[in-house]
């Protein structure tokens, strides 16, 4: 029995963290945030060189052959360092093709995704679905359909669409299809940018009208649920990373900022606020590890734990983010202060793939309550 990380897993996190801190200092993050691009070609190339773009792609297709726990560990680092890019969405597209594609589809797409030459993303949520179900990411509400090698439907909140060469699209029966957008099918694949909250992770609407598509033959509602669950754990890990960064920023600021002739961290009101922020977040690291591990080993309670991490860690990260703004005083409320970069990261992680409310109801349903 070992409830903890292997040396390789610890090394993976350290290496990624070292790379992100060296190659992507806060002022570079600020530039990307202000530009609203959400993509940095040099950074993506660096991730590819470290093998992170092929993290969950099997070795036979040129990837590292690692699992959801390693993906979550990388998402934690991405959240803590605030790096932009489609690491999670891209990895989920890889998981979808590997799990649901036929051998020729895997051979066709996975090597390019593994090297990072092609960026993948997912188009799942639908505008009308939220009216029918509690959650636009609930496959039961999707209306997108395939017909004779084409797909038609209306998606929204699609991340990183501007740079994606491959989009995994959710279908009405819970199945999945792959669309490869190109210049020539501008009429059948229409992209409408949305003004997203996290400018390092831009989102768009996607109108598909008879767009060329290849269904993934082994995709079922159940297999799609597992891809979504991996996404929930990845988002929770990202939010955990963002929260730990916000706590560190707050502690550093409180030690530095002086009022009434002493560092404000010496006032118990401030010290206790930081201690509470830490106590809400730090113990959940073990919940995250368990949830990722449960998905990797196909444990019976995997779906429920994915919902638990998403609901809990992302909700608490947003609470921590609000405290971090308050602790920074007027400065914290400005566009200029770096706190907002992680505040918005936490907001994205909270809402993407279903809010805490949605997943708490799922926790209750899966318990048979």
């Amino acid at each position, binding site marked *: 029995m070992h409830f903890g990380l292997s040396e390789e897993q610890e090394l993976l996190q350290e290496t990624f963290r070292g790379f992100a801190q060296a190659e992507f200092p806060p002022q570079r993050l600020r530039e990307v945030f202000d530009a609203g691009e959400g993509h940095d070609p040099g950074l993506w190339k660096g991730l590819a060189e470290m093998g992170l773009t092929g993290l969950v792609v099997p070795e036979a297709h040129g990837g590292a052959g690692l699992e959801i726990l390693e993906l979550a560990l990388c998402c934690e680092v991405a959240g803590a360092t605030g790096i932009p890019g489609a690491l999670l969405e891209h990895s989920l597209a890889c998981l979808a093709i590997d799990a649901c594609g036929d051998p020729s589809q895997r051979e066709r797409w996975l090597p390019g995704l593994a090297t990072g030459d092609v960026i993948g993303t997912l188009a799942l949520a639908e505008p009308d679905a939220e009216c029918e179900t509690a959650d636009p990411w609930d496959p039961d509400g999707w209306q997108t359909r395939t017909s004779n090698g084409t797909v038609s439907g209306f998606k929204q909140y699609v991340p990183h669409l501007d740079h994606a060469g491959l989009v995994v699209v959710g279908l009405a029966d819970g199945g999945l299809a792959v669309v490869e957008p190109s210049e020539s099918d501008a009429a059948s694949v229409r992209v409408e940018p949305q003004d997203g909250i996290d400018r390092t992770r831009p989102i768009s609407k996607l109108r598909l009208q008879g767009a060329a598509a290849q269904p993934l033959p082994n995709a079922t509602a159940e297999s799609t649920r597992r891809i979504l669950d991996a996404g929930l754990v990845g988002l929770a890990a990202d939010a955990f990373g963002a929260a730990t960064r916000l706590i560190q920023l707050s502690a550093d600021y409180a030690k530095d900022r002086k009022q009434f002739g002493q560092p404000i961290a010496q006032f118990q009101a401030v010290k206790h606020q930081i201690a509470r922020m830490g106590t809400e977040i730090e113990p959940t690291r073990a919940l995250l590890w368990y949830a990722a591990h449960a998905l990797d080993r196909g444990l019976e309670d995997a779906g429920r734990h994915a919902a638990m991490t998403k609901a809990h860690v992302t909700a608490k990260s947003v609470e921590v983010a609000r405290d971090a703004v308050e602790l920074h005083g007027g400065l914290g409320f400005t566009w200029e202060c770096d706190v907002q970069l992680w505040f918005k990261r936490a907001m994205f992680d909270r809402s993407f793939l279903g809010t805490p409310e949605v997943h708490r109801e799922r926790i209750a349903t899966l318990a048979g*309550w």
Partner: protein
Amino acid sequence: MDLQYNQEEEQFRAEVRAFLAGWPLRGEEASLPIAEQETLFRSQAIERGYVYRDIPREYGGGGQEPDVLKDHIVRAEFGRAGAPGSSFLQGPAMLAPTLMEFGSEAQRRRFVPPTLREEIRWCQGYSEPGSGSDLASLQCSAALEGDDESGEWVINGQKIWTSNAQNSHWLFGLFRTETDAPKHKGISYLLVPLDQPGVEVRPLKQMTGGLDFNEVFFDDARTGADCIVGERGQGWQVSRATLKHERNLIANPNLMRDHFDAVVDLARTTLRNGRPAILDPGIRQRLSEIECYVRTNETSNLRQLSAAARGEELKCMLPMMMNKLYSTDTMQRLMEIAYELVGADGLLAPSEADLAGYAKGEGPTGWVEQWMFSLGPAIAGGATNIQLNIIGERGYGLPRDQRPTR
């Protein structure tokens, strides 16, 4: 991550389960009073090496090599069977490990075996009326009359919040023995018999109505010169070890899961608008959120346990120092829902039976008692505001408050 136990551990679990098939007792033994049944079964469990595992045989323990995972298996299996395992009483849970760490050979032989058999019952004398969170300011004094061999400590002063003193034979606690030393260095850890003319125990009624804790007055009370644990002036360090054991007791995740399951049952059986409250969306949201806390507590404890088994505690110092606060906060959130579910019966006071059950009572008034009681652990063993200081200062490197008397 590998949550599979190896073959040796699984075999050990199977042995423990086979042994636990003997609980509850059967035949003539089943007609003994429950306390005697528990003592009988526990003595068999010690004999088998399952209970008080780390304490050597010659001191009345199980005599096994320390093994964090086997400890965990035993706790889990005894918990599942509802069988009497290692006691949560202050003597076996707090004093015995402290004596094993700091006590003299004579003290271990004299006190540990009867403490584990619960023939000597102990209470803890730390807090004083003027010394709560600032425990090191304590004033209750002990002066040595005669020499180190045959002399006696003469004790004067008062202790307070002394749980179970009314049922205890001895008190372990902190007393000021070095009047000229700085406050932390003037304290010694003494063992004091309660059945003597110089000691008076007065019960303190709790706001729940219960009578678990007391004031203890010392008026020229006496104990042997050999009843000091550790050196003179070393009591503060000795007591840190005891407090560590106390905080681990409060953070026991198995107890929290039992309470959570009980509250889910309460939500199933309570009707709201003609249907079970557990179908109410608001209740479902809150129960789900609290289970996330409960599950975090469980997994975080498992992580710490696993790290301890590999000698890697340093990797999880932060969550370790958060255990007490996290679990007492979670328990209060849980009891808050229970209190809401009992509805207007929140007007009723706990019954005698509720109070005797030590926060295990059922029925509406039992929940009222449990809800009130859930405040207690947040105060005992280092109150929440002190925990927050520790986390802020030691966990996040924030500066200490200004403390002029330091």
